[in-house]
């Protein structure tokens, strides 16, 4: 018999164990990661023994199980009867209450079922039944359990409004492998996931989803995961003509280098028929870590119309442009470093790269027979002298040459920020004010004689009024300058009936946004949350209703961009989040935009943004 280890937790990682479980009824509690079974329990383990009994319980997180009531333990050496058996898989200890002539207590050490340590004191919770609440998330009649990785339920049912929904096979993955964290699906208001199949290295899921754009649809996602790599593929939505095919790949080589890619391929096609339109985007990223900095190479390759001219997409064209721009960027970034012992941190970065697009130039110079006049702004940018061929347009010139198909850039930037600085020392913790500030400056010099400067300053003061109420007041200045060495933005001048938006008569390429924000969070309990964000924008150029539109929304109805030209002077967003089901919260939010005088235009965000979030 091997000597007992000094401490169970210091033993090497236990080998992977597979459990094949059958019972009259198995209940799975998602919020506690518990499996409870009753009636004709039969358990076969990859460790080489079989257990039968009346009841079963397993805590998947603690990685231990127990069978109780009329237990038989059977292995190659024979069969023993008992009252209960408990296997602490992580510690390689099996605690058994045999009933031979009389009850006894045996402990099996390190998988040795032949030489039990008899009479050994057992942990006080060795035969503990966890207390469960609510209804089970899933019921089944059988399960395959791979310790610390996944459970595959057989003949599984889930419940909606107390009605059983048959699932057949359902997989619950609880692996701590971080790469299972990756997914390639976009957000959705509701996502009901049916994990159809799984293994320690793979997971296949069918998603029933709803969002305001595509309504109800199905999506499919496949994970392949290793210790240092993953590959994830999905089709979303799979049951709509507009499909996004996603592929994410990742590999970590050694401790300092990683490479990853994400490819999204859009098609408009019915089922798997020939696509009417297709576009593709691929991101590539490689990172090498140094002791106090890192270097990242990124690339983006986009083809807006894989099918070329004549794509037949209906009714709205998403993939129509023939451009296929690409971008490569190499950036070195320092860690965040504290300056002396001040509450001030800095970070600097510098990068080089280029943007490239060759198709546009060809379009510009020649156009496409039968497809109308040349495209007005081709390639990356037409900038310079007027072209000799103005396509029939007289003075002033409309088309400029050359067309830049490659623009190189150099980027330099830095951040300064202060984490929370205490402003006062009141007697009570709920009277303290904290101050935060951050400053970012970035320059981007392009080979087209042109440079862009961006600066951002943030200041905020916050106070917690009670455990449940927190408020903050923030002021942000965002300045973006688009500077041309020669010429550039020309203040708008009315021509004939052409209308110049207010403040564009003096706009020369530099915008400034001042945003004052007031935020309030009220969290009386973890199951309820209300937050309010009210903002006032004083921007240049001045927003003009009808000239600037709101940014496009994502499929949930949320604006794609946080700040943009033409922001209404006032907006307020309310959000309520509360527990709806034992394992789900409902999040509802909506924004009110208010232009105020003199426009007197007021409107709400088009729809409520509703999301069902698992707890």
């Amino acid at each position, binding site marked *: 018999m091997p000597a007992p280890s000094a*401490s169970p*937790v210091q033993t090497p990682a236990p080998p992977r164990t597979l459990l094949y479980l059958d019972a009259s009824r198995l209940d799975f509690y998602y919020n*506690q990661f518990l499996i409870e079974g009753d009636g004709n329990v039969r358990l076969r383990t990859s460790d080489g023994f079989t257990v039968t009994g009346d009841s079963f319980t397993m805590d998947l*997180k*603690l990685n231990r199980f127990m069978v*109780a*009531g*009329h*237990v038989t333990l059977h292995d190659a050496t024979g069969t023993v009867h008992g*009252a209960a058996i408990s296997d602490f898989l992580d510690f390689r200890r099996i605690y058994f209450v045999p009933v031979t002539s*009389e*009850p*006894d*207590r045996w402990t099996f050490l390190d998988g040795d079922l032949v030489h039990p340590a008899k009479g*050994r*004191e*057992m942990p006080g919770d060795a035969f503990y039944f966890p207390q469960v609440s609510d209804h089970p998330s899933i019921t089944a009649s059988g399960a395959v359990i791979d310790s610390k990785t996944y459970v595959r339920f057989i003949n599984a049912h889930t419940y909606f409004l107390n009605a059983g929904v048959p699932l057949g096979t359902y997989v619950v993955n609880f*692996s*701590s492998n*971080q790469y*299972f*964290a990756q997914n*390639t699906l976009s957000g959705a208001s509701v996502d009901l996931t049916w994990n159809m199949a799984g293994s320690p290295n793979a997971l296949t899921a069918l998603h029933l989803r709803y969002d305001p754009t595509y309504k109800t649809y199905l999506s499919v996602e496949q994970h392949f995961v290793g210790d240092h790599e993953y590959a994830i593929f999905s089709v979303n939505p799979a049951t709509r003509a507009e499909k996004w095919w996603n592929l994410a790949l*990742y590999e970590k080589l050694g401790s*300092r280098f990683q490479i990853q890619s994400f490819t999204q391929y859009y098609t408009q096609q019915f089922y798997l028929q020939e696509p009417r339109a297709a576009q593709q985007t691929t991101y590539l990223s490689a*990172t090498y*870590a140094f002791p106090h900095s890192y270097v*990242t190479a990124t690339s983006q390759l*986009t083809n807006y119309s894989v099918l070329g001219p004549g794509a037949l997409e209906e009714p709205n064209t998403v993939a129509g*442009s023939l*451009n296929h*721009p690409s971008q490569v960027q190499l*950036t070195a*970034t320092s860690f965040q470093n504290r300056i002396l012992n001040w509450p001030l941190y800095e970070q600097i970065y510098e990068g080089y790269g280029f*943007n490239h697009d060759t198709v546009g130039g060809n379009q510009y110079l020649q156009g496409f027979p039968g497809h109308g006049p040349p495209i007005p*702004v081709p390639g990356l*940018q037409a900038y310079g002298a007027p072209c000799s061929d103005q396509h029939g347009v007289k003075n002033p010139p409309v088309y400029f040459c050359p067309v830049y198909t490659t*623009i190189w850039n150099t980027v330099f*930037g830095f*951040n300064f*920020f202060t984490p*929370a600085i205490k402003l006062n020392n009141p007697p009570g913790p709920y009277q303290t004010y904290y101050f935060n500030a*951050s400053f*970012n400056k970035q320059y981007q010099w392009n080979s*087209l004689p042109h440079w862009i400067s961006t600066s951002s300053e943030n*200041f905020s003061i916050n106070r917690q009024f009670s455990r449940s109420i927190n408020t*903050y007041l923030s002021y942000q200045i965002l300045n973006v300058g*688009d500077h*041309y060495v*020669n010429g*550039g933005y*020309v203040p708008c001048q009315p021509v004939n*009936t052409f209308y110049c938006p207010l403040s564009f008569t003096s706009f020369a390429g530099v915008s400034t946004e001042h945003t004052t924000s007031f935020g309030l*969070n009220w969290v009386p309990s973890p199951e309820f949350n209300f937050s309010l964000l009210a903002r006032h924008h004083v921007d240049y150029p001045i927003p003009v209703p009808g000239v600037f539109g709101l940014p*496009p929304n994502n499929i949930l109805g949320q604006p*794609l961009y*946080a700040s943009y030209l033409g922001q209404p002077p006032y907006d307020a967003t309310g959000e309520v989040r509360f527990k709806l089901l034992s394992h789900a919260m409902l999040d509802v939010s909506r924004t009110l935009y208010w232009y105020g005088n003199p426009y007197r235009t007021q409107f709400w965000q088009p729809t409520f943004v509703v999301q069902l*979030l*698992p*707890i």
Partner: protein
Amino acid sequence: MKRTLSALAAATLAILLLAAGPPIVVSGQLLAYQEGYVFFTTGDGFHVAHDIVLKDAKTGGATAIKPAPRVWARATFDASGTVTELDLSRAPLPPQGSFADVARFAVALSTPAPNPDLLQNIETPPPGEPETVAAARHFTGRPVLVTFIVQVPPYTPFTSSVYISTDQSGWNAQAVPMDRVDALHYEITRRYNSGTIFRYLYDRGSLQSQEVAQNGLARVPRELVVTDADVRVIRDTVYAWQDSGPGQVNQPQPQVMPTPYNPAPFPNLPNCLPPPQPGGKHGPPPPGCPGAPPP
């Protein structure tokens, strides 16, 4: 003589009654009921009287509940340590008595022996040394309020939503939404039972916006062990987001490069404004705009 005999009989009865003492009553959850023994979740097995009385713990009357695993029971022991009555319930019963008082009645063939595993675990660490993981793994399972406060990179967009994704929710990227509390911090409070262990990462709602480590590489998930406390506060720092690290340039978009006013974050430059050109020249508005020449 008769009086003497009566006194002797009374004294004998009194001695017997005093020796027997009152019955011991203990409540707990059943582990098994078989072969003339009743087992509680302490692992202890006790003899059961042949004529054991089974009652409903709530009403005190007859019960249809059969003693079996998971059933709660109030056990009455006689002086010899035999269980003579079980009051059964499917719901937890209020604690009554102590199993320490009946441990001497537990039946076991083998002589009790110490368990070095347990002795190691309950040792108090010397002053100044951190508690071992094993010692820390004694949890009551009580609900604990856990507050997460995360400091985000200073260039995080102000209206960004920040979430926690955990292995408990299948790494759903929007599983736990957080609330902004100032320019650099987000916060959320959740209730977990002590003993809960999970791994988590911060993100901004998707795979592409997950946090990365300070060295730019994918981050190993943080692990949280919820220890017994009224409230726990977890303070974390996100050094960078995968999709918006420092030094990112304006992304190429068709027909709008490289002006920063068309790609994010400024997508809404009016279409009718002429593109920048050298010399401050510009022609009539583009086709479709007010004032544009007829095609």
